[in-house]
């Protein structure tokens, strides 16, 4: 369809030059700024408002917090990425009743099982958003994309020190403005819909529950 491309671009380029665009004042974005401790509070408030659950942990004990949660909830198996640091740390420390399932082969090898038999998925995060609540993920070879999507429960590890003020500042601080992996995303809660009479219902296609293990690593 190169003719289409040429024709479209020709038409667009032939348009009369518009005036200069209005000035861009980003002050409204830049002033969204809070001290580290407050960022944690805001993130929690924002995410709890959309039914995210929080578990508190310290840097040395988070694997056992995850484990206790799984034991307590009767989770039979937990899918994780063995290639990630946090995934590996979880596996090393694991002594729970749930079976740890490494996501270590192409999804085609176990797609049906993934959809029907996995109870929960564990991922790390690369940051959080204080302003609105939300966690940032960069899925990839170490932690595949579907870990945080297909299992009914998503458990995400978030270090308080990585919480950013806003998505706007996170884009700059994480360098997302320059280059991005094939997939990156923000998640603020479990999957939800309001398509039936504006009534909120959770767990429509993706996870029914989002559990954030919040590691307090602030000095």
């Amino acid at each position, binding site marked *: 369809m190169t003719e289409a491309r040429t024709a479209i671009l020709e038409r667009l380029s032939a*348009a009369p030059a518009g005036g200069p665009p209005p000035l861009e004042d980003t002050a409204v*974005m830049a002033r969204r700024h809070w001290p580290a401790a407050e960022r944690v509070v805001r993130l929690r408030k924002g995410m709890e408002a959309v039914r995210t659950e929080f578990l508190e942990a310290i840097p040395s004990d988070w694997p056992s917090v995850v484990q206790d949660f799984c034991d307590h909830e009767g989770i039979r198996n937990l899918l994780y990425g063995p290639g990630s640091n946090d995934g590996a740390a979880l596996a090393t420390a694991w002594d729970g009743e749930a079976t740890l399932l490494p996501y270590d082969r192409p999804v085609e090898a176990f797609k049906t099982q993934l959809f029907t038999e996995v109870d929960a998925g564990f991922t790390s995060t690369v940051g959080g958003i204080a302003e609105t609540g939300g966690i940032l993920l960069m899925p990839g070879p170490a932690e595949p994309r579907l870990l945080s999507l297909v299992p009914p429960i998503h458990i995400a590890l978030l270090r308080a020190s990585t919480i950013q003020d806003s998505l706007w500042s996170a*884009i700059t601080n994480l360098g997302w403005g320059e280059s991005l992996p094939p997939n990156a995303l923000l998640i603020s809660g479990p999957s939800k819909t309001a398509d039936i009479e504006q009534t909120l219902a959770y767990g429509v296609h993706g996870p029914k529950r989002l559990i954030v293990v919040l590691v307090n690593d602030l000095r």
Partner: protein
Amino acid sequence: MHAETDILFRESAAKALLDPQLRANFRRAMDGLITKRKAQFPDPEDLQELRHLSTAIRSRSLLNLPALLVQLEAACTRNGIQVHWAETCEQANQLVLDILQAQGATRLVKGKSMVSEEMHLNAFLESHGIEALESDLGEYIIQLDGETPSHIIMPAIHKNKDQIARQFSQKIKDAKYTEDVDELTAMARKVLRQKFLEADAGISGVNFAVANTGTLCLVENEGNGRMSTHVPPLHIAIMGLEKVVARLEDVAPLYAILTRSATGQAVSTYFNLISGPRGEGEKDGPQAVHLVILDNGRSRIYGDPQLQATLRCIRCGACMNHCPVYTRVGGHAYEATYPGPIGKILTPQMEGVGVRHDLLHGSSLCGACGEVCPVEIPIPDILVRLRREATHQDPASSVAGKGTGRTDAEDRAWRLWAALSKRPGLYRIVTWFATRFGWALPSGAPLLRDWTRFRTKPVPARRSLSERMRAERGSHD
């Protein structure tokens, strides 16, 4: 001042007004959305600042549109996303079909995409033996009934719980009747998860396309967008050519104002950035990603400096939520892909101002839409401009169907009005008669007939103000 050309919207609207259930559904939903949006903008100055910034970003993006599209194409290609261009919906449909057939794909899941509605893609694919299943819950609900979306963000907003309960119990295998929203949602989940698992391909729209990184941004709450774009082996994204912005930093303010304006949410559940197919070492994600860039009249709209503002739209739906006409008649009355105020200016520009003259006059020009639009599109001004285009043949104009909405009756009416209003002497005589004998006009007179269906007949005062002021002056002289 009646014109034959006004009939389509008028008749559908009148029909919709007779459905009390529909009116109640919309009123409740729109009141709720207005309240929720308002709560997201507690500080009016903050809101205006964010609007100005968003407007400026969209304006700058449009200013550089051709260059940005070329840059987007290059960046996507570098990332392994295959880019296609379509001038028309037919071309875009064919492109999608070709891609699917090359993969032998027959089962398709779709994330929400208004552009695919514009293309009537589902019907086209089905005619070629490909099942295209809508997976957004609202879209799924309306697809079950063979309907089109009645709102761009909440496609099934015209239906209430009872109607959906009945529908599910009849149309979903083994479903029992329930009005419990969680149970209804669970039923859809069960059906759709199986479909995601089995799908050969997924189709999605694009909320923003980032030129420098070659990234497609998808905003959603349900996760069906992620399912459609990450689970099947093939992902096809479709976008209108206006969706491109220069860099991801530009998206942050637009995203912030989009979710707040649309559904009164500070943030959506998912904000998904797709910059390529399954990468080196990745264990999931589609093997191939295609991007179809659709024109369908947009480049023509782009050619007009005033009308170009139409393309700033980020499809938040706030204009319809706040529209007193939309609130009363719902989305289907517009008989167009995009209903409400944005549809009233977009549809006539795409399909021709004469053909959809009815939409241009389906507005009281109250300005509620322009007031809430996050990118400050002057919808009422554009409506007036298009009304002018519809009735006048401006040689310099590039508007589709210009001049084709002109009727002799309307022409005569305005000429008469002008002849009267620019001759004060004549005007004085006519108003004199109106004040003396206006009461005697029968309620069934043209124009009055419509007015008096809902109101008493307006009766002129016994003496006009001008007459009284004349008398006053006379007594002073």
